[in-house]
């Protein structure tokens, strides 16, 4: 039986997008020189003009952050710093709907996700870290651990405001000041966050936001006034950053790519598992570094599970991200869509079997139907490379040892999943899986109290929880 749904669009009247934005430096919006367009990836409508930051803009932002660090922020007690963070958390909650709509417009992700996941987690991150600000002696880093100074933070487009929160909240709680660059295609919520900083009366220069592209990010990485780099993005760029700072004393945390294995044993609860697989790969259009993009199924249940998965996938609603019924929104950019298309074609060419449900994709905007590949082997590129889209590669196994070998057969190590009703098997598998986050009988869950980050080429360090604070502090006595 098919249900028909009437459109249920969220109103965009709540957001007020300016025709043009500058950078946010030293508490003020500063006009940029060059601009580029930011578009709604669901419609290709131009939303605004964003400033392309250059070396001189980064210079000014770093100078402002340095001044704020020495003159105000490092002189404040942890208690007072924490109160600013609490204020920010509260304003974010108050303006949550506005942020959700703006994020959906600029990113293409469904309003259901921005409203129920991204923005609530953003507020939660500030609230969580606010409490740490005056309790850093208890973070396991010795007495009176000290901030590094100015943190340069470069974030991706898949969770624009959430990644800002993951970076800015711990940096401020630990007493660092910030120069942040949002991703080229998703600057709008970061710029709205700058207004929140103003409303919270955060001292000028504590948070500076310079918009731009990769060259702007490189200017931040290479700036001698930056003491700590926090980057979330591709493994390739992460390696470039590691090389760029090799001769410096800059600290770095890197949250990079993944090719998460979602391992399903034959005793798994099949309907819950199907939901978990869908959430693991189709959440946020698969634009998730920790996505469960390799499904590793025990042979005995493979056919039944794949059939059920197809039935479930046929019910995924792809379309207008602002529609409250939408499950799968737009691909974030034309460039990303091409990458997904290219790797999917490689999957075809290498002999894997592609399946997608029938989808009515709009001619305008960037869309990719939820897709699975069966008959995938470990040698296939779609089993090895991060696709960063709604594309699932399915492999099978016979013995638990084989499952673990396949799961760990990757240079990445960000996330993994395991599905089974047997407690001892779950604990055994979570021990064996070489990944920084392991979801057992669930997938893609996030929380500010829960450390996140990868093994191997998925990055350096952790974000969130007690472990995330270490990235922003020098050990005390």
């Amino acid at each position, binding site marked *: 039986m098919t249900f028909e749904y009437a459109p249920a669009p969220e109103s965009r009247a709540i957001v007020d997008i300016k025709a043009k934005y500058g950078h946010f430096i030293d508490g003020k919006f500063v006009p940029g020189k060059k601009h580029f367009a930011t578009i709604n990836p669901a419609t290709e409508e131009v939303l605004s003009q964003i400033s392309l930051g250059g070396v001189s803009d980064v210079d000014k932002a770093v100078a402002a952050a340095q001044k704020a660090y020495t003159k105000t922020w490092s002189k404040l007690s942890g208690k007072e710093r924490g109160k600013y963070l609490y204020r920010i958390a509260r304003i974010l909650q108050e303006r949550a709907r506005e942020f959700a709509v703006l994020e959906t417009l600029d990113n293409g992700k469904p309003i259901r996700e921005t409203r129920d996941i991204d923005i609530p987690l953003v507020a*939660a991150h500030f609230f969580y870290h606010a409490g740490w600000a005056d309790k850093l002696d208890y973070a*396991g880093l010795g007495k009176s651990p000290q901030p590094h100074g100015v943190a340069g933070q470069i974030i991706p487009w898949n969770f624009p405001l959430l990644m800002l929160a993951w970076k800015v909240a711990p940096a401020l709680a630990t007493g660092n000041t910030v120069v942040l660059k949002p991703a080229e295609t998703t600057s709008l919520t970061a710029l709205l966050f700058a207004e929140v900083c103003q409303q919270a009366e955060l001292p000028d220069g504590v948070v500076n936001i310079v918009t731009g592209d990769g060259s702007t990010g490189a200017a931040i990485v290479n700036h001698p006034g930056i003491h700590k780099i926090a980057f979330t993005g591709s*493994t390739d760029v*992460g*390696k470039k950053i*590691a*090389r760029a700072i*090799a*001769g410096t004393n800059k600290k770095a945390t*890197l949250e*990079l790519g993944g090719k998460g294995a979602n391992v399903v044993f034959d005793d798994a609860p099949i309907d819950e598992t199907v939901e978990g697989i869908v959430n693991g790969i189709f959440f946020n259009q698969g634009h998730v570094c920790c996505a469960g993009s390799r499904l590793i199924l025990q042979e005995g249940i493979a056919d039944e599970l794949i059939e059920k998965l197809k039935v479930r996938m046929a019910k995924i609603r792809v379309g207008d991200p602002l529609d409250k019924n939408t499950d799968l929104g737009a691909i974030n950019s034309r460039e990303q869509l091409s990458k997904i298309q290219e790797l999917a074609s490689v999957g075809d060419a290498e002999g894997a079997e592609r399946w997608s449900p029938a989808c009515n994709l709009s001619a305008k905007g960037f869309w990719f139907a939820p897709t699975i590949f069966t008959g995938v082997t470990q040698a296939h590129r779609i089993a090895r490379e991060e696709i960063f889209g709604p594309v699932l590669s399915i492999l099978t196994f016979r013995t638990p040892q084989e499952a673990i070998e396949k799961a760990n057969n990757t*240079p990445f*190590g960000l996330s993994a999943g395991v599905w089974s009703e047997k407690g001892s098997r*779950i604990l055994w598998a*979570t021990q064996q899986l070489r*990944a*920084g*986050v*392991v*979801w*057992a*009988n*669930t997938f893609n*869950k996030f*929380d500010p*109290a*829960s*450390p*996140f*980050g990868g*093994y*191997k*080429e998925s*990055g*350096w360090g*952790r974000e969130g*929880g*007690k*472990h995330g604070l270490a990235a922003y502090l020098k*050990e005390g006595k």
Partner: protein
Amino acid sequence: MASSKKSSTSKSTSRLEVKKTFKLFINGAFPRSESGRVYEVVSNKSGFVANPCLASRKDLRDAVVAARTAQSGWAKATAYNRGQILYRIAEMLEGRADQFASEISLASGVTEKKAHDEVLAAIDRWVWYAGWSDKLSAAFGATNPVSGPYYNFTIPEAQGVIAVAPAESFLAFIDAIAPAIVSGNTVVALVPGSAAIAAMSFAEVLATSDLPAGVINILTGSHDELAPWAASHMDIDGFDISGIDKKKRLELKVAGAENLKRIHSFDGAISPTRIYAFMEAKTVWHPIGV
């Protein structure tokens, strides 16, 4: 060489000393360098000391294979068991403290008293690190109160294979390997210059300490030659470059970026931070429900 002094061999009345051939320590065995190369250790106090092996890139690769093969078993051993083996190393070293003191003194030229103090410090390091094996989760783990019906915990785990390039001293060598292995990593140690003498005698201690083969592999020779190969080796997860000259670290970090190696250096102080630097935090989620 044992505890005898160089001078004693030249006395025509005493028996001729039986000298030791210094080889490498790979996978629990004592092979020569596949390259057939050696270098001279010459002390300004006593002249020629020995011809330890000048390890090659191929020796390094062999050592990495041994370390990788041994790693999962070593990490799977209980923390209690690993702690006992580290403590056993201290016991074995204590019994041979005089031998090590005279070897260090002979090879490096420091006084026998100073060398003896260094050995005693090294023994105490093993005891200190032995006790950490079953406390790392308490110190570096957490249960996390997430907002939802999930049990969520974080545990530290060993990274894998760690290369270490300590400074040219016995204590620096111990300071690099003990914190690396206590968590379940396996090690390839690149021991430079005159430190080779005591390090290779230490391999005999390891061989009698119930340490599984391949957990610690020791190569002697030149940092300049071996460290760049270690930095670029794709199956080494971490690299302790404490003994590398600051000017030469840039090149190693650039090479290590290819697999995002965890590259660290430390001052001499003992600290659990030195253990945790070569561990990864793993966070596990599981639903709570009936």
